[in-house]
Every structure is written in structure tokens, then in C-alpha cells.
């Protein structure tokens, strides 16, 4: 390390420290933060659904045992003030705070934790099985102690206590429900009139218009939250949301809540801040999912040719208006397990043509080698623009593509229930650990009809299966990282899907708002230290 780097590192550290220890007068109490997202939430607890709008609102009301710091989500004390893990990775003991109260004034205890995990999260939360599938028992030796016993190690177990993943729910209110039928819980009144322990209390929900949360005066963190109110506004039209942000009607448009075309434009305005940080814990990734069951797409060379025919830079610049970057494999570059030695994918039509020639697919009438169909995800215009671009580019290397348009139901059915597709663009998340978001798409045990966001491609590779299995119980971080490096190399070479772009989650906010970006799940955090001028 030479002098220059030392100086810059020190300067950077000073800046970081400065940011962390802002003078107290900077934070102002009071005020309202209004934000919008489409669609409006369907429920206010992630037990009912983990869709984005629900996650955005419910995380201000409900908390979990831990809080997280930084883009890589380092666990911090939350409702649990401390925790320990046994050396074999099978027992986790949490010590709870004693001063936490539910919004109705009743004390929060270990009974609520046991109830939430056993009755709600493990059986009903859409990712409950991933975190708590190996759970053996939950013990509550006293009101402030919870002990989780696992059947086998879960290396990402401490990531389970995010407010979206394991929201703590009050047993004294929900305990009397009939849990034999999930409907009784999902359709209970509680889902639209929630009671949690978080910094904000539910006040009002006018369907089709707004949800109002107000400051919880008895919040366990003294002097928090700063804001008096957090308001969710339902503005169904994307262009209208953009205008609302521009005119100051709303303060925040989180996670690409305005159309891509407007993001860059708004970000240049003097009073608007654009940030693509704060979603590292989600790791959004765009790829072309490919049905590997039949020729010619089952041929690796054909997939490599397709990969070379797509200019990822152009996809980022044109379809996503510059927000995002070309992907190099199955993990986003912000993921702690990302392999930095991966090379960028090449854009080379000539080589693509050669690969197809080698594979034996000669050009026939009209220069067409073969025909395939493609779907596109019904998430928004960029995905349709991408499908149009893919069709056009593949046409140039002699692959004739017919695009089929489907709504959400039709798309899910074609891709995950019937496997009747050839190719589709798809948008997935790594989540805070690849065992949650990545593994499910590539292990052969997940070739299961009817389960969404699974291995629809029919991809089978014993080495990959084995690597995912061993890394799934590997508690040595270094060994686990090596296993994942191998996984990434194999997948980037075999291309069971064509990895395209790390899509940015762009957040836009009015500069009067401060303190939004705190960790890799910033929009799903409780905003207790957000303040407005």
C-alpha cells in the first residue's frame, strides 16, 4: 500500500465516519413522507402476500428479531438484543429486549416469536419453508429467551429475521384464529388493520386512495421515529406517479415506481435525488429463460450464439435507460458470494453465426436457420421492448422468433405449469442469499410442474446439484464462497438461461427527505431514522 492509497482510504473513512456521526441538529422531528407504488397493497402483512407493495408498507409496522446494516446485510440487534449460535450451527439462542410493546400496549414476549414462526411464517409465508424448513423446535425457556433448534445447519439462518421475511405478529390477537385453513388468516381483518411493534402504527386505509401510518409514541427506540406520518398513495398510472413526484405531491418513488423513461429525466431535476443503491439484498437479475428439453435450444452452442447476439449494453441503455449493468453470471455483483473473476459476455454476431453453423443449423429459405417462440414477462413495457429487441437481433443470426403475448396468468402457466414455452425473458431476485433466490432455479430437484420461479428449463447438472447441496449446509464462509465460485463458472458457461442484466432498483426522492438508504433492503426497512426538512 503506497502513500497515495493510504491517504485516499483515510479520507474515505473520514467521510464515512462523518456520515455516520452527523450532528444531532441535522435530524428534524416531525413531518410526513408520502410515497407511491403500483399496485396498491392487497394486505398489510407479508404473511398474506410478499408482493412488493405489501412489503413496502408492512415493514414500517412489523419488526423482526434483527436489524441489518450495510449492503451485505450484517445482522444487528433489533427486537433481540443479542444472540448466539452453537458451533455445530444447529442451535440459535436469541435474547429479547424487555421494553417492547405492541401497538395496543401489550408487552412483546418470546411467546409471540414462537407463535409467529410456528403458526404463521413457516407454514404460510411464501418463503417460510426456505428459512424454517429445517426447523426442529422453538423453545421459550422464559419470556425473553427464544431457542431455535435446527435439524441441519442453515448457513443463511441469520438472514431470516428481516422484517419482510419473519414479521413478528401478536399472539394475543391472532392466537384465537382457526389455523387449519390458511384462508382464515389471509382474509382476517388483521391483514388490513395490522398491529405490530414497529416505529409506525396503522391509522387508516382508504382502498384505492391511501394508507396512513402514524408515529408510534411508545416505540422502544427512544426519540424515534423522526417522522410523524408515513403515507402510501395509490396512483395507478406510471406517468401520473412521475408527475406527482415532480410536483412534490409525493416525496418518494421507490423501486422503479415510475416508468423507466422517466427515471433518468426526473433524476436530473434539481430537487430530486436518484439512487440505485439500497437494494443489494434483493439482487434483481434479468435473464432469458430457455426450455432445454428440445433441440435446437438444448444445444449449448446455440445458447452461446443467442448470448452473443444480444448487446447487453444496449439493453441497459435503451430499455432500462441506463439504469443497471450487464450481468456476468447468476449472481449480481453486489452479492457477497459474487465471483469477481467472471468475464463479461461477448457481443459478436459473426461468432454467433459461426457457432450456429458449427452446430449444424444452416440457413435455409429466407436466411432462416430455425424458428422458436418467445414470451415476455408481463411486468411492464421495458420487458416488451426487450422481447422486440431480442426477436430482431436473433433474426440477424437466422433464428426466427415469434413473440407471444400473455398476461400474468397465461405467462405463469406457459412457463411453469405447462413448460410449453421456448424462451422468455424473466426477472428474478438473488435475495440476501443465493440459496434463497438462485438455487431454486438451477437444481434438478426443482424441476417441478406448477411451482413458479423454479427450474422451468429442465436443467440437470449433477455437479451443480451437488455444489448447491453442500453449500446449503456449509457454515465455513470461505469454503462456501469457493463452492459458489464454481457454480457461477459452470452456469455462465453452460447458459441454462442467458444472463442479461443486473437491473437497478432505482429510487427517486425529493431532496427534503434524508436517511433513506441504510442497507441492502432500504425500502423494506422501518424508516425509523428517516427525516424531512
Amino acid at each position: 500500500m503506497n502513500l497515495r492509497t493510504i491517504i485516499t482510504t483515510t479520507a474515505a473513512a473520514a467521510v464515512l465516519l462523518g456520515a455516520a456521526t452527523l450532528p444531532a441538529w441535522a435530524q428534524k422531528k416531525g413531518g410526513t413522507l408520502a410515497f407511491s407504488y403500483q399496485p396498491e397493497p392487497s394486505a398489510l402483512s407479508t404473511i398474506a402476500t410478499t408482493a412488493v407493495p405489501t412489503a413496502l408498507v408492512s415493514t414500517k409496522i412489523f419488526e423482526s428479531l434483527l436489524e441489518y446494516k450495510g449492503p451485505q446485510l450484517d445482522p444487528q440487534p433489533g427486537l433481540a438484543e443479542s444472540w448466539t449460535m452453537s458451533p455445530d450451527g444447529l442451535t440459535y439462542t436469541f435474547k429479547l429486549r424487555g421494553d417492547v410493546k405492541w401497538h395496543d400496549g401489550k408487552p412483546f414476549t418470546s411467546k409471540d416469536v414462537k407463535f409467529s414462526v410456528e403458526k404463521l411464517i413457516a407454514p404460510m409465508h411464501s418463503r417460510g419453508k426456505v428459512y424454517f424448513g429445517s426447523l426442529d423446535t422453538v423453545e421459550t425457556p422464559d419470556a425473553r429467551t427464544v431457542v431455535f433448534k435446527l435439524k441441519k445447519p442453515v448457513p443463511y439462518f441469520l438472514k431470516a429475521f428481516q422484517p419482510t421475511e419473519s414479521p413478528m405478529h401478536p399472539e394475543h390477537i391472532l392466537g384465537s384464529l382457526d389455523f387449519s385453513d390458511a384462508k382464515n388468516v389471509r382474509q382476517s381483518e388483521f391483514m388490513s388493520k395490522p398491529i405490530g411493534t414497529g416505529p409506525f402504527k396503522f391509522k387508516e386505509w382508504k382502498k384505492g386512495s391511501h394508507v396512513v401510518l402514524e408515529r408510534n409514541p411508545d416505540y422502544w427506540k427512544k426519540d424515534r421515529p423522526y417522522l410523524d406520518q408515513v403515507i402510501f398513495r395509490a396512483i395507478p398510472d406510471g406517468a401520473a406517479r412521475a408527475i406527482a413526484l415532480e410536483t412534490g405531491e409525493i416525496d418518494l418513488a421507490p423501486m422503479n415506481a415510475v416508468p423507466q423513461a422517466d427515471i433518468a429525466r426526473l433524476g436530473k431535476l434539481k430537487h430530486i435525488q436518484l439512487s440505485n443503491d439500497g437494494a443489494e439484498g434483493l439482487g434483481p437479475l434479468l435473464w432469458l429463460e430457455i426450455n432445454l428439453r428440445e433441440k435446437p435450444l438444448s444445444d449449448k452452442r446455440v445458447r452461446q450464439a443467442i448470448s452473443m447476439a444480444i448487446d447487453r449494453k444496449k439493453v441497459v441503455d435503451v430499455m432500462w435507460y441506463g439504469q443497471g449493468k450487464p450481468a456476468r453470471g447468476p449472481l449480481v455483483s453486489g452479492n457477497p458470494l459474487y465471483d469477481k473473476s467472471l468475464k463479461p459476455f461477448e457481443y459478436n454476431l459473426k461468432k454467433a453465426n459461426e457457432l450456429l453453423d458449427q452446430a449444424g443449423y444452416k440457413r435455409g429459405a429466407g436466411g432462416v436457420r430455425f424458428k422458436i417462440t418467445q414470451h415476455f414477462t408481463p411486468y411492464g413495457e421495458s420487458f416488451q421492448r426487450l422481447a422486440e429487441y431480442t426477436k430482431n437481433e436473433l433474426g440477424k443470426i437466422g433464428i426466427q422468433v415469434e413473440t407471444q403475448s400473455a398476461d400474468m396468468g397465461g405467462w405463469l402457466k406457459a412457463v411453469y405449469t405447462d413448460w410449453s414455452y421456448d424462451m422468455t425473458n424473466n426477472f428474478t431476485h438473488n435475495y440476501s442469499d443465493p440459496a434463497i433466490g438462485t438455487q431454486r432455479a438451477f437444481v434438478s430437484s426443482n424441476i417441478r410442474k406448477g411451482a413458479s420461479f423454479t427450474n422451468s428449463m429442465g436443467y440437470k447438472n449433477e455437479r451443480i446439484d451437488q455444489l448447491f447441496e453442500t453449500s446449503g449446509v456449509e457454515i465455513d464462509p470461505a469454503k462456501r464462497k469457493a463452492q459458489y465460485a464454481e457454480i457461477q463458472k459452470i452456469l455462465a458457461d453452460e447458459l441454462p438461461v442467458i444472463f442479461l442484466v443486473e437491473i437497478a432498483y432505482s429510487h427517486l426522492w425529493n431532496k427534503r427527505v434524508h436517511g433513506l438508504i441504510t442497507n441492502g433492503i432500504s425500502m423494506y426497512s422501518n424508516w425509523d431514522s428517516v427525516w424531512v426538512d
Partner: protein
Amino acid sequence: MKQFWRRYRKNRAAVGGLVVVALITMIAIAGPYFHPVDPFDMVGRPYSPPFGEFPLGTDVSGRDILAGIIRGAPVSLLIGVVASLVATIIGVALGSVAGYYGGFIDDALMRTTEFFLTIPSFILAVVIVAIFAPTVYTITAAIAAVSWPSVARLVRGEFIAQREREYVQASRALGMPDWEIILVQILPNALAPVIVVSTLMVATAILTESGLSFLGLGDPNHVSWGYMIGVARTALRVAWWMTAIPGLMIVVAVIAINLAGEGLNDALNPKLRER
């Protein structure tokens, strides 16, 4: 025929309409040879304004808008014409049978017609297209499915007016089969208003198609004018011309077809000319 053309020619607006329809048809057929650009190819920088490198500019993905206008013409026209044709055939078939036989058949068919007139037609079209996935065929079928009732009503009325006329009674007395009376005797006499209505229906069908495409229910493999408006909409604040150009094409086409249709009406029903 000569007489028909002479009467048609008198209506100058109708002649103008016909010329424009012919022009658009020519663009649709010959355009791709004079401007051989793929409307889905990214040929330039997105958001280029008109009258620069590209005559009408480029869209949000850097695609040539002129190419879209040219390739969109046959799609919009064909869907309009075919949907109108199918609706006319269904409407004539049901309307003539109902009007000729009367009684129970008439009741049943007219209840069905009323039922279709009661359901909000555009919403029904949206539902049909969405369920069967948008392709050129499903869109055409959906538009036809919501358009036929007005033809059926019209034809039924004409048949009721004609069925007791002497020539029909004479045909019956001669032992002519019903289908022959319907097709050969009455239908030609009832055809004039049907032709007018189905011409005007082409215009409505083009409008409906553009509405469906605008909502994202267009065939993703074909450019249409409504689709172009839907794409350009996100850029409304920065590039309004992207929305304006294809919209103007729709307006011009629909006006032209309407004028031509009214001219037909005048030429085919000289009695009504006075109105």
C-alpha cells in the same frame, strides 16, 4: 354501375375520402418497397425528432417511426376490413333468418342480439382478446364478435319490410325454397344499407383495434398505429410527436372511410340524398 359512379361523383367529399383510402392502401402495399426498413430494428438513437436523419424520427427504442407507419397501415386496414366482413356475414345470416321467419326464431335471435348490445362491447372485446391471447386473429374475431348485432338488427328490419311484398309472395307461390328466397330474392334488395353500414364499421373496427393495442392487447409480432401510440405514451412529456404521428394517421384513415361510406349511402339511396 355507371349511374352509380355518376351519383357518387357528385359528392366531392366522398370522392376525396375514396382517394385518401386508395392512397393509404397504396402505402400499405407499396410502402415497404420504397422504404425497406424493419419497424422493429433499432436503427438510430432513441427519441430522434422528425425531419432529421429519419423523416418522422425514432421511437423510444430507436426504431424508425416512418417504417412503423408504413408497416402499420396494412395491419390496421386488414383487421378493420376482415372484422367488418365477418361481422357483416354473421349479422346478415342471423338478421335475415330472424326477419324472414319471425315468431320464435325471431324472438330468440333478437334476445341474443339485445343481450350483446347490453354488455359493454369494448369491455367484452378486451376480455375476449385477453383470454385468448392477443394475435391478429383473436383481435379480428373479438371485434367481429362485438360488431355483428347492429348489422343483424338492420337486416332483420329490412327483411320484415320486404317479406310480405308481392315478389316474395310470388316466389313462395312458385314453390321456391326458403333459402333461395332469402339469398336470391330478398337479400339483394336489402343489400344497399348493409353495404353502407359495413363500410362505416371498418372505421369503427380500426378505432377499436387501436384502443386494444393501446392497452397493450395488440399482436406483439406486428406494428399497428394503436400500438405505436401505446409505446410512445411513456415519452409523452418529452416527445409528443411520437404519439401525435400515428394518431393522426388513424384520424385521417377513419375520416376518409367515413366520407367514402357516406358517399356510398348517397349513391345507393338516391331518395335519401335530400337529407
